[in-house]
């Protein structure tokens, strides 16, 4: 990453899979896929599939993790061993720990945790198939699962990744673009408040390019947001 590769990722304004630079892959979302969980969801972006489950809020153990004035979020992001071409070693990894942490941070400003002192909310995200942008797919899945669980939220959270290939701004990177682009920028934000809760950058960008990417992500994130609303309401449209 960070340097130009030999693969031509964008030709005549079309990407490898025939998308326009600012086009999002086809998406599929479902809620209530895990009956045992308080809330759950299934989110697919192209070939990336994430399943999220939310348990709680429940009394938190071990006791030293409890906060007496607010609840805490515990998040686990995990990639299934078969989710990519080369087997992922099961268990905790540096990357998994990082993504768990950023998902947790993306949701802390969104939930009314002060209503639930001494408790913990568990978010489990499993990636069963990975093809780029897994962390923003996880954020979308977790957002739906939390709303499905009936946990009070300030807003839904929409995640979408942006990037740059040969001076063109692109959105929703897939696996090949993720590995070979000059930069990729995962963004998660609250669509109604227009506040960003997750922003990371890998690669090199100028100030203007970064601002441009964020602007485009916020604009096109509306599509993902509409899809989330539709998914949540669909369950009650008999």
């Amino acid at each position, binding site marked *: 990453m960070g340097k130009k590769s030999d693969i031509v990722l964008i030709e005549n304004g079309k990407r490898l899979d025939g998308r326009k630079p600012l086009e999002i892959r086809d998406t599929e979302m479902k809620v209530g896929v895990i009956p045992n969980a*308080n*809330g759950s969801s299934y989110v697919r972006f192209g070939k990336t599939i994430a399943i999220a489950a939310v348990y*709680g*809020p*429940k*009394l938190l153990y071990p006791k030293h993790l409890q906060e*007496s*004035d607010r609840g805490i979020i515990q998040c686990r992001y995990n990639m299934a061993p078969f989710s990519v071409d080369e087997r992922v070693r099961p268990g905790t990894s540096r990357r998994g720990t990082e993504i768990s942490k950023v998902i947790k941070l993306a949701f802390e400003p969104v939930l*009314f945790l002060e*209503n*639930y*002192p*001494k*408790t913990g909310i568990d978010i489990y995200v499993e990636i069963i198939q990975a093809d780029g942008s897994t962390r923003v797919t996880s954020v979308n899945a977790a957002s739906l699962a939390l*709303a*499905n*669980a*009936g*946990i*009070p*939220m*300030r*807003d*839904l959270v929409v995640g979408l990744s942006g990037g740059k290939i040969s001076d063109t701004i692109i959105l929703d990177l897939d696996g090949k673009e993720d590995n070979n682009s000059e930069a990729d920028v995962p963004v998660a934000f*609250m*669509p*109604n*408040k227009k506040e960003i809760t997750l922003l990371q950058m890998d690669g090199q960008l100028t100030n203007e390019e970064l601002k441009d990417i964020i602007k485009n992500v916020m604009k096109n994130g509306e599509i993902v947001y509409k899809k*989330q*609303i539709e998914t*949540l*309401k669909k369950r*009650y*449209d*008999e």
Partner: protein
Amino acid sequence: MEDEKIRQIVVPGEEIKTGKDLKSGHGTYEENNKIYSKFLGIPQEFGSFISVIPLSGPYLPKVGDKVIGIVTDVEKAGWIVDIKCPWQAFLPLSEAVDEFIDIKKVNLNRYFEPDDIIYSEVIDTRRGDVHLTMRSQMSRKLKEGVIVEITPSKVPRLIGKDGSMINMIKDKTKTTIRVGQNGIVWISGEDIDKAIKAIKLIEEKSHIYGLTNEIEKLLS
């Protein structure tokens, strides 16, 4: 109101537009003079307040709520009660028994044992310390019955306006029913199976208009 019409549903963070000057009630929050929903739920007006009734979610205890709980443990001077909320509830000895008791001599199992079902009232919820009392009216140990759990936010729907729905189920199935605010329903009497069926149907279809007619059809 048409039969089977679906109520308007809002998602978390969605602005609730009513056109009237309403205050932010339960399940909503206010920012910059606009009212937003906290839950995936159904907006409803209560007097000068607008509230959102969540379609799912945990029970948050409030002072004054009448709840049904299951005794899980006996402590030195009270009982631990499971009321299906994120915290454990505690029933202190002083709130349960009127007579003087020397706790060195008396075994508290005499009053409540684990697995007993009690109907009681919440008196304190500060910082996740939920305390119960048996001193309020109607509070007692519930014997010989069946327990059904429903989503706590759907309890008002189960009770209906001035108890219309629950009284109808009681009359038609010849049962005694107690509903806790925490979504635990205790049933005892003749046709328990039919009553459970009706309660489950209410939970499933709480967002539809004309539910009372449907339940009436089921029970007759």
